[in-house]
């Protein structure tokens, strides 16, 4: 019986040699040409093997979502850049910035918009000395100050930055956006490595990873990738995210293990965490 088993397995093994039998001549040169072309043409982008079949509607919403996410990311980055790099302004300036439009009659007292009682109250609370005094001079003084602050986007310190190149100032929003992006990526990878999974979670994670993948590619093409270390991290992150996006819903533990191997082998988590500064920027 055992002999029969062995013989039968031998027959199976022999017959299996014809299963998906590859051609004798491997198309070495053609593939090498394609590899060189792909590497020359921004090799960071993985080959698009076959586009996954998607519902047109889903595609449209995906793009809308991506566009919205990109706009939100950039706007948040610029906003944070302005906020975090403005000169250390006194609190009352921040309150002043939220004040309603103030009308100053020529030579008269400032008139506050009646439908904004909160702003008036704030000013009264923080600036008791202002109440009852003519506001015209204060308003005239502060408006240029606020305007000046608006124009100093991403300048670290007004006095020190006067001589700094414009490029450094314009790079700060990208840095902030990159840190925020890396924080999100760290959150995704942490969630990906957690044990509790189901199909719904896999699907939402795939969408999340796709959004992050798009942002990663945007950042790779931006001044944020000027730093070689950060560019390498973004490149590795792109590959890992691409693998997660390609994972099917309900992927087996083995499938996820392969992606986790990529994360582990590239020390992606460690590098991500070291790239994200501790403190208030974490989890922006």
């Amino acid at each position, binding site marked *: 019986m055992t002999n*029969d*088993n062995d013989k*039968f*397995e031998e*027959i*199976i*093994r022999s*017959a*299996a*040699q*014809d*299963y*998906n039998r*590859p*051609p004798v001549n*491997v*198309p*070495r040169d*053609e*593939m*090498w040409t*394609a*590899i060189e072309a*792909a*590497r020359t043409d921004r*090799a*960071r982008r*993985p*080959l698009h*093997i*076959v586009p*996954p079949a998607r519902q047109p509607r889903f595609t449209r919403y995906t793009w809308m979502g991506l566009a919205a996410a990109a706009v939100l990311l950039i706007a948040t980055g610029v906003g944070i850049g302005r906020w975090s790099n403005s000169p250390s302004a006194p609190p009352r300036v921040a309150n002043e910035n939220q004040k309603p439009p103030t009308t100053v009659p020529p030579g008269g007292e400032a008139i506050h918009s009646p439908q904004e009682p909160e702003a008036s109250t704030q000013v009264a609370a923080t600036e008791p000395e202002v109440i009852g005094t003519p506001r015209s001079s204060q308003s005239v003084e502060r408006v240029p100050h606020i305007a000046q602050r608006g124009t100093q986007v991403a300048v670290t310190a007004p006095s020190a930055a006067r001589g700094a190149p414009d490029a450094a100032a314009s790079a700060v929003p990208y840095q902030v956006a990159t840190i925020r992006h890396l924080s999100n990526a760290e959150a995704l990878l942490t969630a990906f490595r957690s044990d509790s999974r189901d199909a719904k979670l896999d699907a939402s994670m795939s969408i999340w990873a796709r959004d992050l993948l798009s942002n990663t590619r945007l950042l790779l093409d931006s001044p944020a990738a000027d730093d070689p270390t950060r560019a390498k991290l973004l*490149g*590795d992150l792109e*590959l890992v995210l691409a*693998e997660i996006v*390609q*994972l*099917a819903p309900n*992927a*087996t533990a*083995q*499938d996820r*293990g*392969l992606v986790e*191997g*990529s994360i582990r*082998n*590239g020390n992606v988590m460690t590098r991500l965490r070291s790239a994200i500064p501790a403190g208030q920027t974490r989890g922006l």
Partner: protein
Amino acid sequence: MSALPVIDIRGRLDERDLIARVINGDARAQRELYDNHVDRVYRLAYRLAGEDELARDFTQLTFIRAFERIAEFRHDSSLSTWLHAIGVSVALNGLRTVKKNRLRNVPLEEATGLRSGAAAAEPDLKARLAAAIDSLSEKYRTVFLMHDVEGYTHDEIGAALGIPAGTSKTRLFQGRAKLREALADFREEWAT
């Protein structure tokens, strides 16, 4: 008897030298590395994918990724093992995405009942075996193809799939059992 280790050590040294040249951007070294390994990577990709176009895509992507990451190669394993780990990962992820293999997927129950009357004919055995292999789950199919068809050792399979060699043996054993089960009626006729 002592020649083998010497050759192995020399091969390792040559491999280290080749990798160093590749990292330094030597185009000829990159081509040499590619030529050394492309045949085996392509063959495995073709066995898994069953299509030339997909096999080419998987092979190309494997080498693109390898060249991008080769600076991170730590010589814990041979370069061939490392390359095959990338190759298998690329191929399996690609196949899952493409879902091409679904077109050929036939449930095991159907594979067992196909044309039982002409079981002795070899073409029929091959067709039914192909259907049975297609219907194996990925973990059994991959190990069966790598070991019984392409001749990889269990150590190589384990390194490529990130599993212990013992797990590879278990999967091969179970995969073969499923194939035997799928071809049971053919076996009876063959025995008589």
